[in-house]
């Protein structure tokens, strides 16, 4: 099982890394978000604010990649003609699907590198990590949590006729309610509970606290906790979908 997960993650990461569209999206868009934030907050404002904006732009790119990649994960396999083979494989289908959605989150590493480099070179934002070791733990925790949320998205919104497009439309709402660039405190009070159940909230907090100082471990713990909850919900959803697709013989239909 571990071999399956690791190899799946490796293969899909390499595939995404060779896609010009994905690489452009992972490098160009976070630079845009970061630059917009630098200019809106004031390019000469507190470097901590700007560094936090760089991290926010990175997590925005990760969430953008996950909403797009995950919502189309099942449809893509169907289009490649591999969906039936994957469902019939003698391993849990979730172990096949999870590496795909986590890989769409993990290419966020390109966004992180690009955004930090852009901020440093163009705006002179120093890259100083308050807790480097915790940052190294926080980053994969955030990636896994957001990727697992992607798994839940992949296994639920696939019932929508144009799941890809619905997934894309979740991009901005996700960015808004999880406090990546806009603090949740400026949003209406009813938004706050929504932010608690979404992985980017905890991923962003973990990265921010590890980079700028603060208590990181509870946020990393929250990332792992929501990951487990998403896994449980996704398992339930996958079983339902698989049963439905087999009963209706719609697995290969596009």
């Amino acid at each position: 099982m571990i071999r399956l997960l690791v190899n799946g993650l490796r293969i899909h990461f390499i595939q995404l890394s060779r896609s010009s569209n994905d690489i452009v999206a992972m490098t160009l868009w976070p630079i845009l978000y970061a630059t917009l934030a630098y200019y809106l907050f004031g390019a000469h404002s507190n470097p901590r604010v700007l560094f936090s904006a760089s991290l926010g732009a990175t997590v925005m790119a990760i969430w953008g990649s996950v909403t797009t990649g995950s919502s189309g994960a099942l449809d893509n396999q169907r289009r490649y003609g591999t969906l039936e083979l994957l469902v019939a494989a003698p391993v849990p289908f979730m172990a096949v699907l999870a590496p795909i959605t986590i890989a769409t989150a993990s290419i966020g590493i390109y966004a992180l590198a690009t955004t930090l480099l852009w901020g440093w070179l163009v705006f002179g934002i120093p890259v100083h990590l308050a807790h480097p070791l915790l940052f190294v733990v926080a980053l994969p925790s955030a990636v896994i949590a957001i990727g697992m949320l992607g798994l839940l998205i992949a296994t639920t919104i696939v019932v929508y006729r144009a799941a890809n497009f619905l997934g894309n439309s979740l991009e901005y709402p996700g960015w808004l309610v999880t406090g990546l660039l806009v603090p949740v405190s400026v949003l209406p009070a009813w938004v706050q509970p929504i932010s608690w159940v979404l992985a980017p909230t905890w991923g962003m907090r973990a990265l921010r606290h590890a980079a700028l100082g603060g208590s990181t471990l509870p946020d990393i713990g929250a990332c792992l906790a929501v990951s487990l909850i998403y896994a449980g919900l996704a398992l339930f959803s996958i079983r339902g979908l698989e049963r439905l697709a087999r009963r209706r013989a719609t697995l290969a239909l596009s």
Partner: protein
Amino acid sequence: MNWLRVFFVGGLTSYRALFAWLNPWVFGPTLIIYPLAQLVFYAYLGRAAHAESDTYFVVGDAFIAAALPAVWGTAQGVAGERRTQTLGMLLSSPASRLALFLGRALPTIVNGFVIAVFCFAASTVLLNFHPSAAALPGLSIAIVASTFSCAAVGLWIGAFGLRGRSTTALNNVVLVAFLLLTGANVPISRFPGWVQTVSSVLPLTHGIKAGREILAGASVSHTTGLLLTELAVGIVYTTTAALALKLLEAESRRTASLETF
């Protein structure tokens, strides 16, 4: 008469066939939820940064919302022929290329206008945005002028679709430029001088400025200069796009790449 038929009927047929978002399952998320969420996001980002008023972002992002179908839809109206494997047949027809491709821009301009109106209407409910009724005609003119110039950029991208296999990355680059450099979300005065020069030759820049001035109480006649500049930008892009379409059609014939996919 045939020119007009190709322009109107051909344009409408292409819109129905190739406008990737015409399906209501796609139209809703892409042209209703996405632009509105984008607008609200930037308005709240502006609040958090104490940058500008809600109205500032409503105008900027409603115009960006109008640009989305105008740029992508027009580009898809030309480049989508490759995906459907009909590019060869289309380009072997004796129809006027100008009527053929300009006609594809018209429905997307109308679509862009409708999306912008929706964004403005929704903003009156969701944000602190209360335009005066007197400003609406002028605002409409600014939207149409801006959407026209955006559709011209879509024609440019479509021209590249005659030669290359995919225009997705190019569409993304253009959208990034619009979001950042046209003054939709960041006042242009905050950028270095050379960026301001680039901004001045981009579609949307002058239209958005005119829209903001009209909402602030200026009359249409007061913003005539800005509106005419926006139209002039659109005409320059349309003219050069027509040349690009001609050149790249010849190039795709020369390299036998019309059906590469």
